[in-house]
């Protein structure tokens, strides 16, 4: 067993895939120097044809990657900030994502878009703190939000190997998470398969990304009163509905915690599907950012807008109580 941080796991996954497959290349800003500590050492190892430091031309290099992918390459793009995905939404949602269908299956676009440090980084304010994974799930782009070092490794690997576009969010709140992992056992983690981090029988908590840690903490805090099952979907699209259904079949109660906006957010989709198709014994709840939230700068305002552990705890207690 070795101690591995989430950030190091991302770094390792990319390095391993680049060593294994010469069609894998990485594009992005300041990736030669490696300011985000994911591409560290890759330029020296693989040279500038595989590690491409780009000018600040996100729209161009995102579709440039699409072109390279159509022509047989397997590009990975690092975005320094989550909101850059707004800038390239056309290039991903309207170009890369649509090629396969529109060409009658002639084309595939195996590009991975990843953001090391999504969500709030406290103090980076309105334009640097979004968590737009729900947008990609909405348009149907494969969307991955790993919560642990081994999942960061395994899902990054799978994303790169996948023949479709995949967006991978690495929440800022997860980068420092460490775990004891068996390095030899690290390997791909399939898309669309969730993970139960802690078994329980009273309430299912679905937690996305860094909030898995908050959910585990709440489960521990409540351990002698309420048996909480922590379900981490890992992939938001495709979503592991069967895995969730199996959990809800046991507990009958559901709370979702999701660090994105409430209106049309992924938490709403999870509650809706559970209400339609699963055996809920009491109304479910979600803990999210408010509707249409823009993260304000000051620390207390920024925190006030993000879902918090104590809010989850209360929501779990309420859902549990409402059954009796």
């Amino acid at each position, binding site marked *: 067993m070795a101690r591995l941080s989430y950030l190091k796991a991302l770094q390792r996954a990319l390095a391993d895939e680049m060593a294994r497959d010469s069609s894998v290349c990485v594009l992005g*800003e*300041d990736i*030669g*120097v*490696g*300011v985000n500590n994911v591409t560290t050492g890759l330029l020296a190892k693989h040279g500038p044809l595989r590690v491409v*430091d780009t*000018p*600040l*031309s996100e*729209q*161009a290099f995102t579709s440039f990657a699409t072109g390279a992918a159509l022509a047989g390459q397997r590009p990975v793009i690092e975005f320094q*900030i989550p*909101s850059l995905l707004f*800038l390239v939404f056309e290039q991903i949602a309207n170009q890369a994502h649509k090629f396969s269908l529109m060409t009658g299956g002639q084309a595939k676009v195996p590009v991975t878009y990843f953001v090391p440090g999504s969500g709030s*980084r*406290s*103090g*980076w*304010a*309105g*334009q*640097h703190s979004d968590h737009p994974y729900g947008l990609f799930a909405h348009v149907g782009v494969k969307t991955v939000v790993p919560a642990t070092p081994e999942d960061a490794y395994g899902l990054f690997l799978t994303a790169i190997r996948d023949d479709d576009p995949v967006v991978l969010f690495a929440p800022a709140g997860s980068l420092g998470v460490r775990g004891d992992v068996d390095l030899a056992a690290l390997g791909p983690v399939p898309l669309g398969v969730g993970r139960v981090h802690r078994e329980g029988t009273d309430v299912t908590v679905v937690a996305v990304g860094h909030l898995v840690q908050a959910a585990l903490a709440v489960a521990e805090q409540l351990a002698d009163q309420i048996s909480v099952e922590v379900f981490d979907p890992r992939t938001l699209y495709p979503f592991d509905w069967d895995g969730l259904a199996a959990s809800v079949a046991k507990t009958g109660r559901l*709370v979702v915690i999701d660090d994105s906006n*409430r*209106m049309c957010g992924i938490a709403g989709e999870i509650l809706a599907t559970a209400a339609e198709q699963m055996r809920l014994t009491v109304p479910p*709840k*979600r*803990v*999210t*950012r*408010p*509707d*249409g*939230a*823009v993260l*304000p*700068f*000051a*620390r*207390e*305002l*920024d*925190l*006030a*807008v993000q*879902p918090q552990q104590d*809010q989850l705890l*209360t*929501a779990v207690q*309420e859902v549990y109580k409402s059954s009796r």
Partner: protein
Amino acid sequence: MSVGEGLYRTMRLIRRFEERAIELVHAGEIIGGIHPYIGQEAIAAGVCAALRDDDVITSTHRGHGHVLAKGADPVRMLAELTGRSTGLNGGRGGSMHAADFGKGIYGANGIVGAGGAIATGAAWAAVKEGSDRVAVSFFGDGAVNQGVLLETFNLAALWRLPVLFVCENNGYATTLTVAQAVAGSITARAEAFGIPAVSVDGADAAAVLNAARDAVARGRAGGGPSFIEATAYRFDAHHTWEHKARVRYRADEEVAAGRSRDPLDIQGVRLDADTRAGIDADVEALLAEAVAFALDSPRPDPAGALDHLYATGLRGRDGVGLLDTAVR
């Protein structure tokens, strides 16, 4: 105060403001860090000295210099950076979004290249209402490769709008050099659209002011957009996280050479020593007041975290299931 003294005072204010702000970053009083403007002061000072209060600017992630030079109150600016309710934006914006619409400052901006089109729209609005206001967009060398900025050059030239594009070429976009990023030349991008473009020494505030005066006069007279490339050296880190992370991309000799042309000295030697010392002392006192005011100011009330989200006061739902009943 003479024009030359004014230029020096603005630069000294920016320099010391940035140095004090860096101290506050290290002390944990400014969260998220800042992009220091140190070394580039002559550009903001020179350009803004050619502007009126009602002219408009848009700024960048490295925006403190522009905001101060355009006349925002340094005391309230520092309160903004420290996240206080007395700040220019009530603590909602911070370093990358500081704005003061009363002074025509349409804000720093966290997205590279985003301000150019905004300034151009503001310039168009001035024309439409018959005003001779101009708008200025500051941006870095990194921004000249953003599609939106090139699209904006076309609109500005096509519609002969009173907008001045100021490219601060400090040689780097974070770690990427201009040589690695820019095909052709920066001024040629503007010239391709028929926008008159000049390159000036961005360490010399008087040279920047001269170029800006020409451009602003052309804009006010209906002569359309202009472009200034001002070259300068960024003395400090791209962002204060570098103070800890120690990323290496500039040779020590290069940094030393860059710092040897200090815009404050270039302008400072044009003043007599007593005048300069007097300005320095004034600035020191002002910043002491600013720091004290900021640190004594109240922090915003979390209950108002999403105040101002909509101009109309629309309130969405809170984010917590328990408060579902609070739908308004």
